[in-house]
């Protein structure tokens, strides 16, 4: 199919020869009724006879050792069952992920690290017990402040995702120095918190040496493997359920301390135990998006063609483990520039461990790159849409690989058409409405295509229905629904004849809901299983006992590709900036995506819009700060860390361009869960510049910063 034809919202874009393909159709969420009636059960909502509750005790110093834990007062309280600490907690094997090394030793690597866990008959008893535990520390000096020139900074071998820390082509510094038009600017993105609405929670129970947990995770298969390793039991003695998960956005990608602590507490007390982490404790223990300081140098010819592109990122990690936000990596994909350098530096500090947050690397990296591109367009006197188009590469700039499909230009053009970009007066500060300044901005988006091996089973039932079983996780994406559609499509049956079970290690093992790879990975395995089943049945009758077929995509889903595979998109934003208060309001937000084949137009639209909403928060309201004196995140709850609320969010448009890409997976799909956030903050920031004529290079664009910019005139370069 030609990729330039825009889809009609809500209408499936392609049907198989029989005209009945379920793929692309706006099928309603299968678990929707449970969610609107409140009957969906999440991890903490698992009553058991004798169930106890746990409450953690976070370290109140930023660095040091625990020298004593006085539990007497806590244990004397009515209803307190136990206090666990490194002194008495069950001994576990050493975890691969050092974030899970809880209650193992006396070390305090950062403030908020859990140093004890109180188990009580009730939530109130556990909480009161936690308040009564007295912890003494040997305090050491700490350093939690990220700077551009920290002496401890080093160049890591790899950044998150296994990407090389540094890539260089040609002579980027020389090419930049001699470029006729140059932009040399710094951008900074603060620490950000995932804050899914359901806090991390686990209910754990041991029976006869077997562990059963209900936990809030993006991937139960890995949770089982990790728990089995830690507790030294065979994997088949561990069952992990994650039937409903209240969002994750990366912070539940792998096990977090709650599941380890709940299982420990259940073993220690012999009781089923629920541990739901208090909201304020989350930022310190579940990962955060690390702050990134960017320096971008863009050298161009007068016609806009880039001759040098340099993107350097400085970030932090914890003392617990190295995690490097791969924020310079998207620059390796985006624009043709013969000479380039993309590099990361990381500084270990006494901070909580960073981890994945929706589009790690891409979200902050593309914010910086796409903002700098806007600045370059200004220097050139060129339309920012056209600047991106003239720098469209023929092959992936860093690898030289051909793109499996790349329709960024089409996204930009279609977005510009829908947004009414041609009516825009390009002069900054040219549109006033009373005290408001109105402007619009554009930015590109990109997210890589990923897939992991998974297994699935499909059974033909004697009643004519089919049962698909796979340990996929529905964190709100609509996984059940889209997998049923994939099965129905391959089996050529109506989607209501497909039943599906997900969210438990009782089901065939599958990969996590992360990296926008869930549907591709799980769908691939479901597709394979259905293909084999269809072959076995070959139109014949289903045996009375049914017929089950399994598939494993190892070797397929993880095979190397000769192609560079990414989804692309374009974001357009219109803002109004109040010159009296400094408040920025987003009036319009529009995204156009080229993300392969869209498999469910209804749930896909929700994901795109959801990503853009989080990008709006990143642009305007979300920001955390490390308190230098106390060593913790100042904005640790939802009253201080401002995720977008209803009143912040206008009507958001998401559209897509149909791509027919045969180099992806049997469905022809690319991931859609993350790309929505990627260009949004830059589009909004560029719109604020267009509105006001001043560039604020530090997120979020809060009233104080915007007002300061308006009052100051020309902004400093950001570093």
């Amino acid at each position, binding site marked *: 199919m030609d990729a330039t034809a825009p889809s009609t919202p809500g209408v499936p874009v392609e049907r198989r020869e029989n005209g009945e393909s379920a793929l692309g159709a706006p099928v309603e969420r299968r678990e929707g009724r449970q969610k609107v009636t409140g009957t969906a059960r999440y991890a903490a909502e698992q009553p058991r006879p004798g169930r106890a509750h746990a409450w953690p005790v976070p370290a109140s110093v930023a660095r040091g050792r625990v020298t004593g834990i006085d539990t007497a007062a806590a244990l004397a309280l009515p209803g307190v069952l136990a206090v666990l600490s490194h002194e008495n907690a069950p001994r576990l094997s050493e975890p691969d992920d050092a974030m899970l090394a809880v209650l193992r030793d006396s070390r305090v690597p950062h403030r908020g690290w859990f140093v004890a866990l109180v188990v009580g008959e009730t939530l109130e008893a556990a909480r009161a017990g936690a308040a009564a535990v007295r912890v003494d520390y040997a305090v050491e000096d700490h350093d939690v402040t990220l700077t551009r020139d920290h002496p401890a900074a080093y160049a890591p071998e790899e950044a998150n995702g296994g990407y090389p820390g540094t890539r260089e082509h040609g002579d980027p510094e020389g090419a930049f120095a001699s470029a006729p038009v140059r932009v040399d600017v710094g951008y900074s993105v603060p620490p950000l918190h995932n804050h899914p609405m359901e806090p991390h929670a686990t209910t754990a129970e041991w029976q006869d040496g077997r562990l059963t947990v209900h936990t809030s995770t993006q991937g139960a298969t890995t949770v089982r493997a990790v728990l089995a390793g830690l507790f030294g039991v065979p994997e088949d003695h561990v069952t992990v359920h994650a039937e409903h998960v209240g969002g994750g956005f990366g912070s539940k990608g792998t096990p977090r301390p709650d599941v380890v602590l709940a299982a420990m507490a259940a073993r220690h007390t012999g009781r089923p135990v629920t541990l739901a982490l208090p909201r304020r404790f989350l930022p310190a223990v579940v990962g955060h998006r690390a702050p990134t300081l960017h320096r971008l140098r863009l050298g161009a010819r007068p016609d806009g063609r880039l001759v040098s592109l340099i993107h350097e990122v400085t970030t932090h990690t914890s003392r617990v483990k190295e995690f490097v936000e791969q924020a310079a990596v998207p620059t390796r994909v985006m624009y043709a520039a013969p000479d380039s350098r993309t590099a990361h530096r990381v500084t270990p500090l006494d901070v909580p461990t960073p981890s994945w947050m929706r589009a790690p690397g891409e979200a902050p990296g593309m914010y910086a790159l796409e903002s700098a591109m806007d600045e370059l367009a200004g220097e050139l006197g060129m339309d920012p849409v056209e600047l991106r188009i003239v720098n469209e590469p023929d092959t992936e700039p860093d690898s030289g690989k051909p793109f499996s499909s790349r329709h960024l230009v089409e996204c930009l053009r279609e977005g510009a058409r829908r947004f009414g970009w041609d009516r825009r007066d390009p002069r900054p500060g040219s549109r006033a409405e009373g005290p408001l300044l109105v402007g619009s901005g554009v930015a590109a988006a990109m997210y890589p295509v990923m897939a992991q091996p998974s297994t699935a089973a499909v059974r033909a039932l004697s009643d004519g229905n089919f049962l698909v079983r796979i340990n996929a996780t529905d964190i*709100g994406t609509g996984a059940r629904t889209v997998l049923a559609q994939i099965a129905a499509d391959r089996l050529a049956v109506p989607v209501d004849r497909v039943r599906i079970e997900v969210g438990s290690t009782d089901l065939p093992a599958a990969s996590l809901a992360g990296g926008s790879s869930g549907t591709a990975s799980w769908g691939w395995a479901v597709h394979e299983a259905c293909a084999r089943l269809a072959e076995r049945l070959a139109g014949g009758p289903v045996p009375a006992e049914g017929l089950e077929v399994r598939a494993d995509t190892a070797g397929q889903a993880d095979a190397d590709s000769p192609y560079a595979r990414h989804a692309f998109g374009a974001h357009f934003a219109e803002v109004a900036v109040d010159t009296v208060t400094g408040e920025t309001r987003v009036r319009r937000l529009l995204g156009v995506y080229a993300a392969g084949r869209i498999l469910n137009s209804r749930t896909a639209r*929700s994901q795109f819009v959801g990503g853009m909403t989080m990008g709006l928060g990143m642009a305007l309201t979300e920001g955390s700060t490390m308190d230098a004196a106390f060593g913790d995140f100042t904005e640790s709850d939802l009253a201080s860390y401002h995720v977008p609320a209803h009143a912040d969010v206008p009507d958001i448009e998401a559209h897509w361009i149909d791509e027919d890409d045969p180099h992806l997976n049997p469905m022809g799909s690319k991931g859609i869960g993350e790309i929505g956030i990627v260009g949004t903050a830059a589009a909004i920031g560029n719109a604020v510049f267009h509105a006001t004529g001043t560039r604020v290079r530090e997120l979020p664009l809060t009233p104080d910063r915007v007002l300061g910019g308006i009052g100051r005139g020309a902004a400093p370069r950001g570093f």
Partner: protein
Amino acid sequence: MSGSNDPGSTCSETTLTVNGKPHTLLVDHRRVLLDVLREDLELWGARKGCDHGQCGACTVLVDGRRVNSCLLLAVALDGSEVRTVEGLAGDGEDLHPLQQAFLDRDAFQCGYCTPGQLCSALGMLDEAAAGHPSRVTTDVPAGRPVPLDRDEIRERLSGNLCRCGAYPRIVDAVEDVIP
């Protein structure tokens, strides 16, 4: 813990009518309504997102008004009528029209904030009908119903956070049920 209403006791007998059904419970004075609903009555629909009145996931209706049930000590609500998401559908109704509208509009993803959004929206509709103004209300005579446009709905539902970003569709769903 002693179990009487005597001075010095830590629990008190408390009667709540929840979704039309009376419950008399011995309630720990520290226990908030949210935890009574969830832990004692096993009505899990009211969710715990923050436990501090910051997210709205625990919103229920007490005596017809929307409240953050995580902020109310249950013992202080003796005699109150509580309505939760489990009690939204009327007699003979499969779903309340607003629940159906949420389904029709795909007004949620992970679903964790959904019961709170539903209860909050129903409380909000009554408030507007009773003439309560919001920050964005203009030129409505006191006591007259406030017409709800999209800005009014957004403003009035801003106590209910949705991290999945379903806001535009929640507004669509609420608009669907405005009489």
